[in-house]
């Protein structure tokens, strides 16, 4: 047996105490590095996890197909969607929203079980054998399709984000949640598989008079929206798979509409019916809701695209820098996205937006998809105001909070895309703040 000296024991304890999120980090690289600089080699504590055989190395694991549908390690149980009664009616979780834990996500693909969810009348449970999609109105040949009919069309797979236009809506009047999950978690990004709507419409013969399409769901609220035909013929799809498997019920199983880059609310779930017409329908969710009230007292309707946006996910209130010490090299990482096209670049500011440096994009840069950005920073222990600002392929740049407020006011609810800022305190704690007058 190896004994740990009293000195090294206290060294471990001190290291542990410094590490606010020690259960998460276990042994952070920086803590070990610091120990080795500060103390002679003899004080280096032996790690029990190395010295002793582990529990899992000295026993038979569980049978490989115990979970015919695999599940995450139970240790990951805190990586889940979260809700708040504030974003619901009287705490009723049938018409509310759950937000993605974007601080725990890696890369650009959201696992299906963590995809954010918004419903207006609960999650509908549809029998796929009884599922029908009707397409009619100003077409030469109206049709009814079964799920199998839809799957017989040649499929395409594309990676696109979906975002609720209310993402960040709680922040119009000032910061309210100290959490990146609640500041920007009303979005996720997935590889969708389905059919381009124009390929189905080629069969039906769209009449030239058709300018608008009604998309209606089959949930209890028959959630519906009006879409211009121009978008339908550009990149609209009806999709039945996400990340390689059937849509989750929360995402509209078995079929939903996908309008890349546009309000997730327009991407109608549990799709029932597509009707083509000459005039817009004025659905409930494009009049009483999902319209953006401006200071003039008039509201913007049919506000489709999710504009260029970005958020730093590490550090964040959930992922603070409390375990860092001066001189540590640390990666600042985040997500940028735009419903108008690809992300062109992302800038980072350390002083609340006075001065900016360009960050690096990393991984795939796809249109209307999450794009990762990264910047390696030498931590110096001083407080900073950390912001990110994205620019997209159509040359649109995220506005400052004050620029956006000057035009949109604070009562619009939807389509908030101004720059987000984290205050990082000397002790590494991260707080949600806004740079605004």
């Amino acid at each position, binding site marked *: 047996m190896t004994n740990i000296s009293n000195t090294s024991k206290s060294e471990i304890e001190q290291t542990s105490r410094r590490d606010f999120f020690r259960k998460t980090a276990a042994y952070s690289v920086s803590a070990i590095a610091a120990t080795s600089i500060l103390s002679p080699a003899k004080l280096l504590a032996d790690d029990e996890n190395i010295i002793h055989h582990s529990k899992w190395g000295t026993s038979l694991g569980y049978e490989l197909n115990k979970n015919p549908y695999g599940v995450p390690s139970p240790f990951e149980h805190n990586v889940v969607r979260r809700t708040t009664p504030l974003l619901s009616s009287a705490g009723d979780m049938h018409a509310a929203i759950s937000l993605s834990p974007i601080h725990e996500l890696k890369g650009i693909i959201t696992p299906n079980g963590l995809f954010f969810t918004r419903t207006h009348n609960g999650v509908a449970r549809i029998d796929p054998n009884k599922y029908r999609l009707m397409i009619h109105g100003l077409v030469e040949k109206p049709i009814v399709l079964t799920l199998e009919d839809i799957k017989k069309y040649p499929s395409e797979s594309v990676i696109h984000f979906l975002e609720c236009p209310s993402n960040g809506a709680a922040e119009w009047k000032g910061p309210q949640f100290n959490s990146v999950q609640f500041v920007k978690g009303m979005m996720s990004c997935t590889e969708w598989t389905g059919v381009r709507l124009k390929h189905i419409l080629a069969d039906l013969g769209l009449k030239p008079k058709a300018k608008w399409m009604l998309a209606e769901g089959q949930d209890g609220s028959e959630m519906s929206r009006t879409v211009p035909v121009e978008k339908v013929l550009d990149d609209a799809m009806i999709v039945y798979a996400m990340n390689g498997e059937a849509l989750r019920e929360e995402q509209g199983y078995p079929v939903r509409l996908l309008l890349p880059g546009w309000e997730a609310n327009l991407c109608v779930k549990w799709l029932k019916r597509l009707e083509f017409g000459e005039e817009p329908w004025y659905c409930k969710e494009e009049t009483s809701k999902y319209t953006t009230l401006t200071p003039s007292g008039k509201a913007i309707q049919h506000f489709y695209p999710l504009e260029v946006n970005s958020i730093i996910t590490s550090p964040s209130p959930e992922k603070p820098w409390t375990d860092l010490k001066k001189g540590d090299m640390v990666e600042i990482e985040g997500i940028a996205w735009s419903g108008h096209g690809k992300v062109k670049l992302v800038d980072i500011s350390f002083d609340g937006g*006075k001065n900016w440096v360009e960050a690096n994009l990393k991984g795939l840069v796809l249109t209307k998809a999450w794009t990762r950005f990264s910047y390696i920073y030498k931590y110096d222990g001083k407080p900073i105001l950390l912001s990110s600002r994205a620019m997209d392929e*159509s040359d649109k740049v995220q506005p400052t909070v004050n620029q956006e407020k000057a035009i949109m006011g604070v009562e619009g609810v939807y389509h908030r895309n101004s720059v987000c800022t984290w205050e990082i305190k000397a002790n590494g704690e991260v707080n949600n703040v806004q740079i605004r007058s």
Partner: protein
Amino acid sequence: MFKLDHKFIATSLVALMASSAFTMASTAKKDALDGGMTYTRDKGMYSDYYINKQVDKLKINNGRTPTANELKAWDSDIMPDGTGLPEGKGSVEDGDELYEEQCAACHGDFGAGGVGYPTLSGGSISSLKNQRTAPGMDAPKRTIGTYWPKASTLIWYIRDAMPYAHPKSLNNDQLYALTAYLLSVNNIKVGGEVMEDEFILSNKNFSKIEMPNKDGFYPNIDGKDGVENVRKFFADGKNYGAVGKRCMSNCKDPGMKGAEPTVMKIGIEMKDVNPPYSTVRDMPKKTNTSGHPGKELYESSCAVCHATDKMGAPAVGDKKAWDVVKAKGLQNVMKNAINGTAAMPPKGGNMDLTDWQMQLIVDYMMSQSM
């Protein structure tokens, strides 16, 4: 063999680069309706994706033609010009009674809200200019009378989506009565006439409803220029806050008072989140999952009203409230649950539940409230 010369190499290189072998993405143009990019589908590419070139020329001809009855059954939308309005009629007075029974529990008396669900009446159009830039200021009131542009939206939504817990359960006359009542509590006129209790709304006079905020929205999406108006709207970022500039140093924000940025911190933090925040990686505590057969039924049919006491119903988990219920005797409790009592409709509005299922539910609710 052909003769190689510089000119040939140059032209063939250009040709090669234009061919798919060198094309990494299809052409992107900033010409979308929404002010963003569109991508061509050519040479087997769509943006960065490879696509099957055959598909764009195919006709697949799946599916079948719907029958006339099928079209009638599903084509239930109601448009602003009255297309789709069902035949029927109902009075404000009848609507009032229906509203009390079926709607007031969620939307409050006279649609005035207060329970947490959407407020349907009250406020003024001028309130829409309110901007809460400081604490204590009044919010803009977005109700049927102050905000909704079309009456068709209201009757259509009620028809398809209401009452919340059992949508599509109202007949056409009830639909008109309820719509009439909601318009009347918003002081909306029909053909210049104030809607008194005996006013009857029908498919005949529906088009005469005067929605006060019908001009409160832009861009104008109606008529032959509708789509073009949308395009023009998105072409100018100033219309919708797309005014960011890429400044790199010594940037001065329009709202900055001095040289340093003004930092606004969280005033009152919203902490009521579920499950509570945690990034700990440990084994979850064993939770006592009650396998009660009434749990799922309760959650899908009853929790809407009984999860809290906000709706006036005894909240599950509230021992005191349930002691009062239990004092009535189990038989009476079951009778009320099945036949309805006070604001509670029979079987909570879900007539698909059997009496046996109702017993399971009541037993579950009681077991959670001891």
